[in-house]
C-alpha cells in the first residue's frame, strides 16, 4: 500500500514538473513574440525618419548638425541587435535627436503647415503609441516570466532547465515634449462617484442627476 502511495506522489510530481516546464516554454515564446512586436514598431519608426529629415531639410537647410545627429543616431539604433537593455540604450540618443529635429521644425511655420510634414508627424505619433503598447505588453510578459523563475516551486524547474530572468525594455525618454501624457483626475472631468457609496475610491463628485447634465467635457 505504501509503495502505491509513493508511486502516486511521484507521478503527480512528474506531471507537475512537465506542466511547469511547458508553461515556461509558452511564456518564453510569449516574451519572444512580444519582443518581435517591439522590433516591428521600432522598424516603423526608423522607416519614417529619412522622410521626416528630408521634409525638414527642405525648409531648414542650415541645421546640418541636427540632421547629422538624427542620421547617426538612427544608424546606431538600427544596428543595435543585442539585449533589450542594449536596444533601449541605443534608442535614447535617437529619441533625443528626434526631439531636437521636431523642435527645429517648430521654428518654421511654413513647415508646420506642410501636409507631408503633418502626415509624417501623425504617423510618428501613432507609431510612438503602438511602440509604447508593444513595450508594455513585452514588459508584462517578462514580469510574469520572471516571477515564475523566482517563485517556489517553479524555481526548481527553472534552475534545472536553465530558464533565466529576461530583461525589461525600459526607455527613459519619449519623443513627445514633456514625456508621456499626464492625467490629472483632481480637476473636474468625466469621472463619476456614487453618493452614499462606502469605501469608494472615487474622488470627484458628479453633477447632480436631478439637474440638467452639462455638455460633454473635452478629453483630459
Amino acid at each position, binding site marked *: 500500500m505504501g509503495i502505491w502511495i509513493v508511486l502516486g506522489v511521484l507521478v503527480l510530481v512528474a506531471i507537475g514538473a512537465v506542466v511547469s516546464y511547458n508553461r515556461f516554454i509558452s511564456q518564453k515564446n510569449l516574451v519572444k513574440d512580444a519582443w518581435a512586436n517591439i522590433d516591428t514598431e521600432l522598424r516603423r519608426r526608423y522607416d519614417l525618419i529619412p522622410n521626416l529629415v528630408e521634409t525638414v531639410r527642405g525648409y531648414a537647410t542650415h541645421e546640418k548638425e541636427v540632421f547629422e545627429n538624427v542620421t547617426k543616431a538612427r544608424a546606431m539604433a538600427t544596428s543595435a541587435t543585442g539585449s533589450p537593455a542594449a536596444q533601449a540604450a541605443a534608442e535614447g540618443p535617437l529619441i533625443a535627436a528626434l526631439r531636437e529635429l521636431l523642435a527645429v521644425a517648430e521654428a518654421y511655420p511654413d513647415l508646420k503647415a506642410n501636409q507631408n510634414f503633418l502626415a509624417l508627424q501623425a504617423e510618428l505619433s501613432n507609431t510612438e503609441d503602438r511602440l509604447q503598447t508593444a513595450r508594455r505588453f513585452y514588459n508584462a510578459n517578462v514580469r510574469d516570466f520572471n516571477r515564475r523563475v523566482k517563485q517556489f516551486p517553479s524555481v526548481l524547474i527553472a534552475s534545472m532547465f536553465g530558464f533565466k530572468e529576461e530583461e525589461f525594455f525600459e526607455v527613459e525618454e519619449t519623443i513627445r515634449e514633456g514625456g508621456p501624457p499626464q492625467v490629472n*483626475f483632481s480637476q473636474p472631468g468625466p469621472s463619476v462617484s456614487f453618493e452614499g457609496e462606502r469605501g469608494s475610491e472615487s474622488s470627484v463628485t458628479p453633477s447632480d442627476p436631478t*439637474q440638467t447634465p452639462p455638455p460633454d467635457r473635452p*478629453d483630459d
Partner: protein
Amino acid sequence: MTSVTWIAITIVVVVVAAWRARHRRDRQRQLMLLCTRASLEFSTFDPFSDTTWLPFRLFGRGTSRGTENVVWNDHDGDDARAFDYWLEERTGEDRMPVIRRFSCAIVALPFACRRLDVAPHGVADEVRELVGGERLDLELESFNRRFDVRADDRRFAVAFLDQRMMRATMTLPPRISILVNEDRMLLISSLLPAGEVLLLLEAARAMRRHVPQVVASLYPPRPTKGPHEDRWLQGRWSPEPIGDDV
C-alpha cells in the same frame, strides 16, 4: 402546520410581493422624473431591437430574460444607453426560479475588440464574461489589487488598459464591472437606485472617451459592408482581397 400558520405565511408573502412591486414602481417613477429633468429619453420597455443580440454571454443566459427602464439621449446622436436587465434562472436541486436584476450601460466602440473582462475582486461569476483562465497583472499594483482582468487576447487587454484607462476605471464604484467584446463596452452592476442609473450612463460615456486611441490602430473596426463582410461573418476576416475581389 396549522391553517393559521399557512394564512400567516400567505399574508407575509403577499405583503412582501406588494412591497417589492411598489418599490419597483417608485423606482421607475423616480427614474422617469430624473430623465425628464435631465432631458433624457426614457421608456419602460426596450425600444431597441438589438439588446438581446449584444455580444455578452449574460444576454443569452437564463430560461427567460427581459429589458426594462431604458434611458438614452436622442439629441446628439449618442448611441449610449442604460437599462435594467433581468433574467430568470432555475438553480439548485429544487430548480426554484431565481430572478436576477442588473443595471447596465452600453456604448459602441469604433474598434474590433477582443473579449475583455475587468471586474472588481469578488464579483459573482454570473456577471463575468470570462470565467477561469489566467488573470492579467498590469503595471499599477493598486489596480491589480482591486480588479481581476481576464482577456482572450492579452495584447488587446494591455493596449486597452493603459495607465489613463486604469486610473479612470479606479474612479468607478466598487461593484461595477466593465465587459468589452466586438464593438461594445458594457458597464454592469447589481440593480442600482434610480439616480445612480444616470451616473452609470455618464460613466460609460466617460470610459469610452478614455479608451486609448492606439486601440483603433491595432484593432481596426470590422467592415460593415463590402466584399469582406462575408468573410468576417464566417470568422475568417482578412483585409487582403481574395478571389473575385482581387
